């Protein structure tokens, strides 16, 4: 399958700060690619470069087969973009904004009007489309922003943290829409997110970015498998690093990591390993306050690769 997005050693510096540092990407046509990382990791800078809004300091990138620096106009015709903050003009009505968007993509006035009607149905915004955007709720603005990105039927859709700040219902609606655009229309989707569940649920492949570096890439399942299929988390009454060496000796344990009083044990078979781990902890003469067995999450992958956890909000739990 051909590449929809490809970057080679892409770098962007802001003065002394390197926001994106030599990122190589290859996103296949028709793929949903999740770009996962904490705030300030370089996700939005990467999107702005791929969307031709920002020139790279060095390196190169092609989108839909066109170089983002050499032929940005061809790139723009083929991409739709919903940036992190809904980029809307509050003084226009929703329909005026969509119609104007259509006209700028060369649609005739009648085609633009037809498209406004179709998108109104798509984003389920009802009569509000004829109201000023300043009266819209956050969820309505997001949906209108997505519709604006879809006016010209792009081949590739960039969504920069599309669900940040949305309530769970609106978030689920966006996920459903993203899946549908991908499945029904074969649209390639490049999605940045700081939400683990979002990347896990939506993305065919995930790239993990930290401090401007792409630190891992693969399917969510492969990434999780790379650190074991299950995780045992023990909260102790003391510094967990004192028991690491003892737990590493337990059969079935793949890796052990201490974070303060929390001990994170990766294993290929959690149910078989949890009892021996408990026994080993008891033998170390520590009090176990809490012992949890769960499947690995992308957060565990992120922790393994970067030494930090990604922030999660309450509604984004990965299950235990």
């Amino acid at each position, binding site marked *: 399958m051909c590449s929809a997005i490809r970057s080679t050693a892409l770098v962007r510096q802001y003065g002394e700060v390197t926001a994106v540092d030599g990122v190589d990407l290859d996103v296949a046509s028709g793929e949903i690619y999740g770009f996962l990382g904490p705030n300030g990791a370089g996700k939005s800078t990467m999107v*702005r470069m791929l*969307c*031709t*809004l*920002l*020139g790279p300091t060095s390196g190169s990138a092609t989108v839909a087969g066109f170089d983002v620096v050499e032929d940005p*106009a061809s790139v*723009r*015709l*083929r*991409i739709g*973009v919903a*940036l992190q*903050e*809904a*980029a*809307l*003009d*509050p*003084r*226009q009505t929703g329909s*005026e904004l969509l119609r*104007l*968007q259509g*006209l*700028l*993509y*060369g*649609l005739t006035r009648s*085609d633009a009007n*037809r*498209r406004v009607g*179709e998108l109104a*149905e*798509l*984003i*389920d915004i009802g009569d509000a489309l004829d109201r*000023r955007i300043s009266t819209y709720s956050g969820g309505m603005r997001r949906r209108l922003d997505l519709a*604006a990105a879809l*006016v*010209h*039927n*792009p081949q590739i859709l960039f969504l920069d943290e599309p669900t940040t700040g949305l309530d769970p219902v609106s978030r689920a*609606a966006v996920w*459903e*829409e993203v899946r*549908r655009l991908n499945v*029904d*229309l074969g649209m390639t989707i490049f999605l940045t997110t700081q939400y683990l569940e979002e990347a896990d649920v939506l993305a065919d492949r995930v790239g993990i970015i930290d401090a401007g570096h792409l630190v891992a890439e693969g399917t969510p399942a492969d990434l999780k498998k790379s650190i074991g299929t299950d995780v045992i988390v023990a909260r102790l009454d003391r510094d967990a690093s004192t028991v690491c060496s003892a737990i590493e000796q337990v059969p079935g344990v793949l890796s052990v990591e201490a974070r303060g009083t929390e001990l994170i044990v990766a294993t290929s078979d959690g149910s078989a390993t949890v009892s021996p781990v408990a026994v080993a902890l008891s033998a170390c003469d520590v009090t176990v306050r809490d012992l949890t067995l769960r499947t690995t999450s992308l957060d565990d992958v992120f922790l393994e690769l970067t030494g930090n956890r990604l922030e999660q909000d309450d509604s984004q739990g990965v299950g235990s």
Partner: protein
Amino acid sequence: MTIATATLRNQVAAVEPRAAGFFADTATIAGRALRAIPRDVETVIPPIFIALFFFLVNIGTLSDLTEGQIEGFDFTAFQLPTAILLGVTGVSRAPALVLDVQNGYFDRLLLTPVRRLAILLGHMVADVTVACALIIPIVIVGFIVGVRFETGPLGILAFILLGAMWSLAFSGFGYAIALKTGNPGAVNSSFLLFFPFLFLTSSYVPREQLSGWLDTVATWNPVTYLLEGLRSLLVDGWEWGDLVKAVIAISIVGAVSMSMCFAALRGRIRRG
């Protein structure tokens, strides 16, 4: 939220995105800017109020004094061009452009195939339209208080056109500041540029009455020649020398402001 897949496929199959072209882009952006004007009347009402206020107050207070000092002097006609420049100088969609930058809509425009220049020119087309709309009621008030055009209806047209072109030339400063700073406060402060342009010149008395440093400054101030060109349409008839000087003055200011404005646009696009 979902619609039938087959329908969706048929719908999008009919969409063929392409670059609309420079003139279509400019017309689309201008259309948006013009639609916004009735929604931003607060940007239009104060200039016309200020212009009419000073026009009426000045002719009320200074007519007798000036006309008594200078034989054959028509202070009301003399003041009409000053009122026009008070009304249209600094009136532009630059504050709206700052809002676009701030709320991200400028980025949305840049993500489309729109010609970058068309974004600015579209706003400026709207500015010229607004300037004409501001000049016409001031001219009507001028007629009501007895001003007449020696050059007839064509002169009125030339008068409106010169005023609107000046407004456009000066608006470049506002757009340059808007694009350079993205700061509405800075754009509003561009109004300060207006003072030396409009008051260090022959706004209230003929140039022959100026002396010393003010005369020197007025000689170098392009607005002096613009005012003289506009006044010639009112009181002298078709004085081509004065009109050519007015056009040159507008062109010089326009060349400076537009160079700054387009450089600021390039800078903002480059900064992303």
